[in-house]
């Protein structure tokens, strides 16, 4: 019955080689279409519903362990943590008080300069699914999808800075590409002097590379890099990383600059999805002006 290259289980008379050829052509054309543009996003969304149970199941034990470890931790350590958090919150509140005054001043100055006021960005907390994607790329899945209004190219922050952006949206989940992915680049500016450049991922979650700075560029180890807002993906002014190493070689045109991401890319559990200011400009922009007039 099992003649090599012959009949397969009597179900079909099409030779093995021909079936292989047809299916190969099919998957090759799938790849071609998928690589060009996102005509296949509908198909991908349908598949993603089918594999969603697997993602949830794989993620479950890790989530459960978190719950168990919280409920088992003793009273003293919880009280300590509570006290720590309270003092932390107090510090933040003090800083926020000044922030409100500064923000009002900023808006006033911007109105005087006749430039558009910067408005607050809308955010949504998303949980990272404990699922490993391709180990060669810096990507992960989050538990927000189409229903939450997530879109491709949306910026993603964590508590310390910019983490990445949305690379693909499925029905219940989304795929995130981190700023440390080798295929990703963030437009940044040096906070100290406003020098603009681009931070490129390296594939290592603790390193970003700044390849487009000339040897005589004014940059030094310890400089804070913030997002410049150019490119229109990331909101401006959020920390991206800190320069840790500047190597200037006399024979080379460009300096070798390495930065460490501000976001804790390999330790995050939760991230913030940001809706860029343009979406909310209509409403908050006017209230911003009203506040100034008061």
């Amino acid at each position, binding site marked *: 019955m099992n003649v090599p290259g012959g009949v397969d289980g009597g179900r079909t008379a099409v030779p*093995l080689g021909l079936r292989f050829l047809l*299916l190969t052509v099919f998957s*090759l054309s799938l790849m071609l279409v998928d690589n060009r543009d996102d005509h296949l996003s509908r198909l*991908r969304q349908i*598949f993603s519903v089918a594999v969603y149970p697997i993602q949830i199941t794989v993620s479950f034990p890790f989530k459960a362990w978190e719950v168990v470890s919280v409920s088992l931790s003793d009273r003293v350590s919880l009280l300590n943590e509570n006290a720590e958090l309270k003092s932390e919150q107090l510090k933040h509140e003090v800083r926020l008080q000044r922030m409100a005054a500064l923000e009002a001043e900023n808006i006033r100055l911007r109105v005087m300069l006749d430039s558009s006021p910067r408005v607050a960005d809308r955010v949504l907390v998303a949980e990272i699914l*404990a699922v490993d994607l391709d180990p060669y*790329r810096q990507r992960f899945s989050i538990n927000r999808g189409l229903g939450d209004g997530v879109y491709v190219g949306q910026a993603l922050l964590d508590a310390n800075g910019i983490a990445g952006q949305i690379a693909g949206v499925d029905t219940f989940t989304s795929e995130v590409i981190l700023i440390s992915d080798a295929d990703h680049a963030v437009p940044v500016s040096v906070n100290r002097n406003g020098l603009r450049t681009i931070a490129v991922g390296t594939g290592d979650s603790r390193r970003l590379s700044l390849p487009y700075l000339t040897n005589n560029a004014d940059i030094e180890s310890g400089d804070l890099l913030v997002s410049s807002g150019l490119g229109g993906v990331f909101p401006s002014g959020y920390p991206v990383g800190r320069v840790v190493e500047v190597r200037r070689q006399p024979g080379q045109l460009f300096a070798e600059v390495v930065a460490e991401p501000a976001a804790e890319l390999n330790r995050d559990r939760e991230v913030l999805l940001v809706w860029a200011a343009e979406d909310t400009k209509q409403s908050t922009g006017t209230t911003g002006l009203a506040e100034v007039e008061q």
Partner: protein
Amino acid sequence: MRDPDTDWVLPLSTFVLALALSVVPLPGVVATFRPDWIPLVIIYWAIVAPERFGLLTAMWLGLAADTLTGSLLGQHALAMLVVGYLCLRFHLRIRIFPVWQMSMSVLFMLAVYEFVLFWVDGAAGRTVPYVERWAPVITGVLLWPLILGTLDRIRQDNKARV
């Protein structure tokens, strides 16, 4: 109990398990050595039951893997198709090999699998490291005798109980 020649529970559960294991989070260095679970189970089933599992099974599992890992739709499917084809083409020979020779065939097929993935990544212009690509091939081959033994044992037990 269940006749292993028509039973769907065992194959289906190995497929789901393989898909789950291929996305279970592992710490950094270990993740590099994560074996290619899905091609391993495809190789097993295509060799022991080629009349039931073949190219279509390989393609569906490949598409599921593409969706799970967010790779190019069709990338894993193509690689699994090649592995499935090699298995079906040579299953009569591979089936009677001693274990070490079988492992060598598995080594070859996993290397082809990784090469197809690598080639598609390169053609699509995605940056991937070169050396780490081959680590799963090694772990996959080392696991093969274990997978073979376990699944053969379960199937024999089922047969004995019929």
